């Protein structure tokens, strides 16, 4: 294979599902490029990605705050009422001496999701303002390291499993935080899990390094 220079590597992409090498092609706004071997999505082209990213990061942070400060579920059992919030779940693990599990849970469902949304907010703001070449790079690297460790979606499924276990023993009332968490997980799936980081890298190159007008 012949290439003009090392910068021409930028036109290549390796499918992250099956490791097939592809040349990047220009695609229509709002469409996606798929791998010819396995059908996995290689990248999307969205001219409004910065605006979407900013709007959804702010919305996500608001719903995450709601999900943390209000009760998730409330149960009535033998005439007693009990409720939990996300921080309370983690603190109760610490109270019972389960420091390792508590620490793991704190990172997976509280610290990493929060970090990801704050980083996204800063990142998209910087791209919007077209500055911070070094900063955006560092943030993208950090994001790549912590994205696989955010598990709010799994936590949401766990709540449902736990509640199904309790049906028959207690009366269950869903709290505000539960619905907020559902919205947060939807936004998380849309902006964090769906948008590949390489799309943001490409966007960064176009806007900050080459100074293209979008």
């Amino acid at each position, binding site marked *: 294979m012949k290439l003009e220079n090392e910068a021409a590597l930028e036109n290549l992409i*390796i499918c*992250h599902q099956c490791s097939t090498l592809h040349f990047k092609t220009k695609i229509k706004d709002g469409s996606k490029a798929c791998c010819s071997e396995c059908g996995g999505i290689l990248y999307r082209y969205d001219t409004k990605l910065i605006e979407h990213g900013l709007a959804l990061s702010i919305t996500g942070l608001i719903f995450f705050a709601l999900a943390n400060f209000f009760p998730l*579920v409330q149960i009535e059992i033998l005439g007693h009422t009990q409720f939990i919030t996300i921080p309370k779940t983690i603190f109760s693990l610490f109270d019972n001496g389960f420091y390792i599990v508590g620490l793991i849970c704190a990172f997976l469902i509280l610290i990493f999701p929060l970090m990801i949304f704050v980083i996204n907010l800063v990142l998209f703001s910087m791209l919007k303002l077209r500055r911070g070449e070094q900063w955006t790079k560092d943030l993208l690297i950090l994001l790549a390291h912590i994205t696989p460790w955010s598990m709010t979606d799994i936590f949401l499924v766990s709540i449902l499993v736990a509640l199904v276990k309790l049906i028959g023993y*207690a009366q269950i009332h869903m709290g505000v935080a539960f619905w907020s968490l559902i919205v947060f997980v939807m936004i998380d799936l849309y902006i964090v899990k769906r948008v590949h*980081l390489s799309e943001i890298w490409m966007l960064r190159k176009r806007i900050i390094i080459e100074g293209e007008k979008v």
Partner: protein
Amino acid sequence: MIEIDENKLIACPVCSAVNIDKGKKNTCRRCGSAIYHHRNFSTEKSWAFLITAMIAYIPANLYPMLITNTFGTQDGSTILGGVVFLWEHGSYPIAMVIFFASIMIPLVKFMILLYLLISVKYPLGKDKKVDKHKLYYMTEVIGPWSMIDVFVVAILAALIHLSNISIVAGTAATAFAISVFFTLLAAHAFDETLIKENR
């Protein structure tokens, strides 16, 4: 014009930019992360994490995951015991979810990682048409879902602590969380470019 071999192109594990493999130590041209490519120590890190995870998985299955205190009597249930209990009481979907998340996924993940780690060193299953990239991608996607059981225990323990009835997490919760954590680390530490070389 530069001439490069297509097999010498590797993706950066951090930012997935395409790089030319220049030998032992590469740095990504886009994000500057090191792309290690050491002939002798390519799989050791992943092996170490995987073995730790497998060791932690043993107490995770032997010790109780949940301890229920009802009116003074303590009753512990292991992961498998919990699944059997749910199945006998007719909660089939939940029993299936817990069974898949806590028993099937970790075991399948151990098996896939073992197979991948052995097959990149020794020519095992070379002639068979097994898509190793797909296998690896699968472990990355399904891996985190085994945390379900740990979260469920955390929620139940936080929710139910009355004077008469209380649920406490058991020793297995710690062991299981550690096991899942290390399997995830093992999967991340696995060097995907090794698959290509041994294809």
